[in-house]
């Protein structure tokens, strides 16, 4: 059995979306910027896709700038604001400690360029600390960037509340909504944000395409320089088939949401959580705050994450430790550390992310596989041996570790 529970890393392309793309991978191949018919036909479809994305998030088509993905959208937002004349007066950027590397690394680069950057802490439940936000956001704050849903633990962030604080101080607000779109309702007006990032391949669309919502009236600096495409905010020949697929994927994801797909997935996710907790002792469920319905992050104390994922892979179960982007890195996930987990527990964490086609059978199979793999690895974990010998329970252990540091 092959069970894919890594939908936060990427999703399969919907067959309907591929069907919609194929004409633009075959006969309608023109450059959408070309003035002739080969181009115009494609231009129309690209603009239709723009409308689809805009409609899904409650924006106007002109407010959608297509990019090559979520990472580029995040970078365009952060550098677009900080390179623009807006940045002459305000020199502070406020973000959270649990952002995706696309935001974290951009913020580190901004720090090098002389910006003050505040990484807001999160509660043990994985939700940004509103008190800290209130304190950090001031009249010198140019931009607040807070993700809508965390990719590793799935927690939803209080973007609306933070946006209100930001507005009160005259700061701009960006949200990385890459992991939210298609999973929960995302309406930019309701959130009160000026900028929002999206990525197609996270919602059954093609890879290599994303979008940045840029509120009407906001003037960004482009990150790439070149032709006239995307109102000069994103030059380069448009990835028309990708954009067209993205538009279809967003629309279909929205329809699924409207039909209650999220509740079906949530029920399966909750079942997986229950099964794992029933079968495996000494675990921590990460992200106690409100979560997107498809994500479950659990630390299996005293075993190591890569060993877990590889063992599960051998059983046909695909999950990830932390985010796919940082796999191969030796450090434990910055998100889990931000929750206050000790590194040796953070190291043993798995992210299960379910998808629209996930079945109960798959969930049951996965739970069984995880239980046996954890058991096998713990059997030769020296840390587990010591833990058992200590006769502490995990809660006490975590408490003691917290006191030590």
């Amino acid at each position, binding site marked *: 059995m092959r069970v894919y529970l890594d939908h936060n890393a990427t999703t399969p392309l919907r067959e309907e979306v591929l069907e919609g793309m194929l004409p633009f991978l075959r006969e309608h191949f023109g450059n959408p910027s070309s003035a002739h018919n080969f181009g115009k036909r494609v231009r129309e479809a690209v603009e239709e896709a723009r409308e689809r994305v805009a409609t899904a998030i409650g924006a106007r088509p002109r407010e959608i700038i297509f990019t090559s993905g979520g990472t580029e959208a995040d970078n365009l937002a952060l550098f677009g604001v900080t390179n623009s004349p807006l940045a002459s007066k305000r020199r502070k950027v406020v973000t959270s400690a649990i952002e995706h590397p696309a935001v974290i690394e951009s913020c580190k680069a901004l720090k090098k360029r002389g910006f003050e950057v505040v990484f807001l802490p999160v509660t043990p439940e994985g939700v940004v600390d509103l008190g800290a936000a209130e304190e950090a956001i001031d009249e010198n704050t140019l931009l607040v960037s807070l993700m809508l849903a965390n990719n590793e633990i799935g927690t939803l962030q209080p973007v609306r509340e933070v946006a209100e604080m930001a507005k009160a101080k005259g700061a701009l607000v960006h949200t990385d909504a890459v992991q939210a779109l298609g999973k929960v309702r995302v309406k930019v007006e309701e959130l009160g944000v000026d900028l929002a990032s999206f990525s197609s391949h996270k919602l059954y669309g093609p890879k290599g395409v994303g979008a940045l919502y840029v509120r009407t009236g906001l003037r960004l600096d482009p990150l790439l320089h070149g032709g006239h495409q995307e109102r000069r905010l994103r030059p380069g020949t448009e990835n028309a088939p990708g954009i067209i697929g993205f538009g279809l994927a967003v629309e279909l994801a929205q329809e699924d949401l409207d039909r209650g797909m999220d509740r079906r997935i949530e029920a399966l996710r909750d079942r997986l959580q229950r099964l794992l907790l029933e079968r495996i002792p000494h675990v921590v469920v990460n992200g106690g705050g409100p979560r997107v319905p498809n994500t479950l992050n659990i630390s299996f104390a005293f075993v190591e994450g890569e060993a877990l994922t590889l063992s599960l892979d051998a059983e046909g179960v695909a999950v990830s430790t932390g985010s796919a982007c940082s796999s191969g890195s030796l450090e434990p996930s910055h998100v889990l550390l931000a929750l206050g987990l000790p590194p040796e527990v953070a190291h043993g964490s798995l992210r299960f992310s379910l998808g629209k086609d996930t079945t109960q059978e798959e969930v049951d199979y996965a739970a069984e596989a995880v239980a046996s793999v954890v058991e096998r690895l713990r059997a030769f974990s*020296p840390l587990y041996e*010591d833990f058992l010998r200590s006769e502490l329970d995990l809660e006490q252990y975590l408490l003691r570790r917290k006191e030590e540091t």
Partner: protein
Amino acid sequence: MMENFNYSQKVMEHFMNPRNVGEMEDPDGVGTVGNPMCGDVMRLYIKVEGDRIVDARFKTFGCAAAVATSSMVTEMVKGKTIEEALKISNRAVAEALEGLPPIKMHCSVLAEEALKAAIEDYLRRSKDEGDRRVQPSHKHPL
């Protein structure tokens, strides 16, 4: 990312079916190395008869490479004299596993260190001539 790697078949085989796994009763030497913060801790037990390591076992918290290098080093050490065992280098362990990805070479270093720590423990004990019950040495926070 390009840092992504494929383990050799040998590594995967030793990871999925590690040799000499588990505790040893009455070991003559025990070495624990590594740091749980970094994601790997190895504990290596040896039994020595005369000058020769007649058995070795391990417990490891760590990635596939950490498990495989532990498994391999216990295999390599069995039947060797203490002197011979001290010559086992991390490269030799990695080579026996048909190579390790660059960012995983430190696991072979850990395996070498765990072996040395176990041998040192054995040597210390032989010098002490004491026969008190072995307590594994903890470097990790418990």
